[in-house]
């Protein structure tokens, strides 16, 4: 006979789990006890939100499901933001929560919350395990659901008494989920239709999202783009799905995307939308988005097709399968013919690129935030995993770091959860210990999970952080400047009684956690400081003072069109 908690750990081992991000408590300590006897590494965060983001960082960097675990009640509710984040960005995650014993459920027992109920709208699926004999099946299903199809978070809630029971576990070899659709494959007729559309098009564009990355289709995309000579714009989630240094790359589109990507998407006569969901931050006023173009939507999730935007040709498919079939169908065609066919379009795009480059004004005394990112890009030669918080620094990171590989830009895109950056960097570093992992953060976002510096030090995770410190909630401040006549509504984050002084002192905070740190305020100190950050083999915090007057541009105001873009 095996104890429930041991069956849980065996189930995790069988799924190949190597690391669990977990903060113990009364109803999950049984599982922690079992984990002390397992080879699985347990990383102790300092807050459950941190562990959920760390699990996401692990999943985003590796493609394997991130596993986090918390106790009932406050432990479980603290996981909620991370679960929502994984749901919005389709990240494979298995979240395990302890629950009060069966006989206490529904009685407002100590540290009881109905976490299955709380998380219903933000999970791919969830389980409340009331029978110890269900544990093997539930874990098998949970991991299968988290990583297949459109990935997402799965929650498993297990009452403490179930963990303490004994049973003879029977581990299934396969899952039986009659209501879970098989991964769809592209209809060959639809593929032929796309080939026909390519021949008629004059201004085609590939608009590619996170589906390229979660579908592992970046190789197929590169091949397809090069063969057809169609330019590629990604979404924020799609960054890294196509090398941004490639001549066909337009970087990313949307509210703060490049002018050339937005112009191309809106003036395209054929838009090939692959693994995307026509998010409002991408389309602006959705009725006007690519108004005159023919839209093909290749998507794994049937509920995304036609959700925000009607499309001419929907193709329900795993994106990799669809791109493979497209590449196969193009086998006989010569790339040169496409190049000639779309030559005018490329001339137009080149003109836009020349007219509207991403740029910033250099300064002799201050450090423009964009320059920090570009310098980091140059010094890492683009070879690093970058995470971000949410806000101005996040957009600038997308703009001024050129990403060439999938799973190297990890950001909370759909949920926009501040505090994501540093714990996600911890998870990414655990998944990829040989890669340089750097969180480019804002002073506001960094403070939201600053306690995870302890995790970095204690667990010896050498994730670095660069704080672009403008002492403001920068993105909201930017909106105040643009749309609210600069009236400040609680967007100043330093000390109003000493507005000129730095507050808080991040260097001193980092030292308190035993983590080396440095502050720079002058442009001449930037490179040496980044050098130091890159060279240390421990965690590191670099606090860079940047002017708060910088705005993220270009900007298409909410629910407007590409023609309303603000350039200066």
């Amino acid at each position: 006979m095996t104890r429930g908690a041991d069956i849980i750990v065996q189930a995790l081992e069988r799924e190949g789990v190597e690391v669990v991000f977990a903060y113990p408590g009364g109803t999950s300590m049984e599982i922690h006890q079992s984990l002390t006897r397992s080879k699985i590494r347990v990383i102790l965060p300092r807050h459950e939100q941190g562990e959920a983001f760390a699990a996401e960082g692990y999943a985003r960097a590796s493609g394997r499901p991130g596993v986090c675990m918390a106790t009932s009640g406050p432990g479980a509710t603290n996981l909620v933001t991370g679960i929502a984040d994984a749901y919005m960005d389709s990240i494979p995650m298995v979240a395990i929560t302890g629950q009060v014993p069966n006989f206490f459920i529904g009685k407002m027992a100590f540290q009881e919350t109905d976490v299955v109920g709380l998380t219903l709208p933000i999970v791919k699926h969830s389980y409340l395990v009331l029978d110890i004999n269900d544990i093997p099946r539930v874990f098998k299903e949970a991991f299968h659901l988290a990583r297949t199809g459109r990935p997402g978070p799965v929650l498993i809630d297990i009452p403490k008494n179930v963990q303490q029971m004994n049973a003879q576990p029977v581990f299934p070899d396969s899952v039986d989920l009659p209501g879970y659709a098989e991964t769809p494959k592209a209809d060959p007729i639809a593929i032929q239709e796309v080939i026909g559309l390519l021949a008629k098009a004059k201004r085609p564009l590939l608009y590619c999202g996170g589906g390229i990355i979660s579908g592992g289709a970046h190789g197929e995309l590169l091949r397809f783009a090069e063969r057809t000579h169609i330019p590629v714009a990604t979404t924020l989630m799609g960054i890294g799905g196509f090398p941004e240094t490639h001549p066909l790359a337009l970087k990313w589109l949307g509210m703060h995307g490049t002018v050339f990507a937005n112009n191309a998407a809106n003036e395209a006569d054929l838009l090939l939308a692959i693994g995307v969901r026509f998010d409002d931050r991408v389309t602006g006023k959705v009725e006007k988005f690519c108004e005159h173009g023919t839209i093909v939507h290749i998507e794994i999730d049937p509920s995304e097709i036609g959700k925000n935007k009607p499309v001419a040709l929907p193709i329900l498919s795993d994106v990799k399968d669809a791109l493979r079939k497209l590449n196969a169908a193009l086998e006989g065609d010569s790339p040169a013919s496409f190049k000639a066919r779309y030559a005018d379009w490329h001339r137009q795009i080149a003109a836009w690129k020349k007219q509207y480059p991403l740029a910033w004004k250099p300064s002799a005394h201050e450090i423009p935030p964009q320059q920090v990112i570009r310098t980091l890009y140059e010094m890492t030669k683009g070879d690093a995993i970058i995470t971000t918080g949410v806000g101005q620094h996040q957009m600038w990171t997308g703009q001024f770091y050129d990403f060439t590989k999938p799973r190297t830009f990890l950001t909370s895109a759909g949920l926009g959860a501040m505090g994501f950056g540093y714990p996600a960097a911890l998870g990414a570093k655990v998944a990829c210990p040989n890669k340089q992992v750097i969180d480019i953060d804002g002073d506001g976002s960094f403070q939201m999970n600053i306690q995870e510096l302890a995790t970095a030090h204690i667990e010896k995770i050498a994730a670095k952080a660069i704080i672009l410190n403008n002492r403001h909630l920068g993105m909201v401040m930017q909106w105040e400047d643009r749309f609210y006549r600069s009236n400040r509504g609680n967007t100043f984050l330093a000390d109003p009684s000493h507005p000129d002084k730095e507050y808080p002192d991040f260097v001193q905070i980092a030292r308190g956690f035993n983590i080396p740190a440095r502050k720079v305020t002058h442009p001449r100190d930037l490179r040496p400081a980044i050098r130091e950050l890159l060279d240390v083999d421990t965690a590191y915090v670099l606090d860079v003072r940047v002017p708060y007057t910088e705005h993220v541009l270009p900007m298409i105001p909410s629910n407007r069109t590409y023609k309303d873009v603000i350039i200066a």
Partner: protein
Amino acid sequence: MDSPLDCRTESPLSLSMTQRHTLAILVENKFGVLVRIAGLFSGRGFNIDSLNVATTTDPAFSRMTVVVRGDNKVLDQITRQLEKLVNVIEVQHFHPHEAVERELILLKVKADSKTRSEAMQIVDIFRAKIVDVQAESILVETTGAQRKVEAFLSLMRKFGVLEMTRTGPVAMRRAATACDDED
């Protein structure tokens, strides 16, 4: 919502609230399924008119019949998201005339020695059934399509309805050649 003025204060979603939809949803017979399904409606401000659940011939599965009012496009979205739920096997969206719909109603009306025979006549005409008789009231059961049930109810109202409970419709797609004896 007859006055155009009223419309202005309504959200676009509620403009077409009058459109009635019947969904038949085949689900795995597991706890929590109902709340997952209901959540997709409530999260969008859809009110469920009626909802029925019971097991199918295979006790591992249940069939739900849900009647909702709302915008076609939003409902289409909900249907796709329902199909995505792991415990949902199949969703059928019935258009009027595609399906046979029946509901059961239990009705307690005032009926004493003076009015009882008239009430019984109406019960007979509608092929309803008296299941309990008291000195001052009768308890009637009837099943049928919504129109029949409504007509029966309106005639019984004059006796004075003491209590009523109705199941809301259950529905099944009709075969191409079948006909509904009540249409």
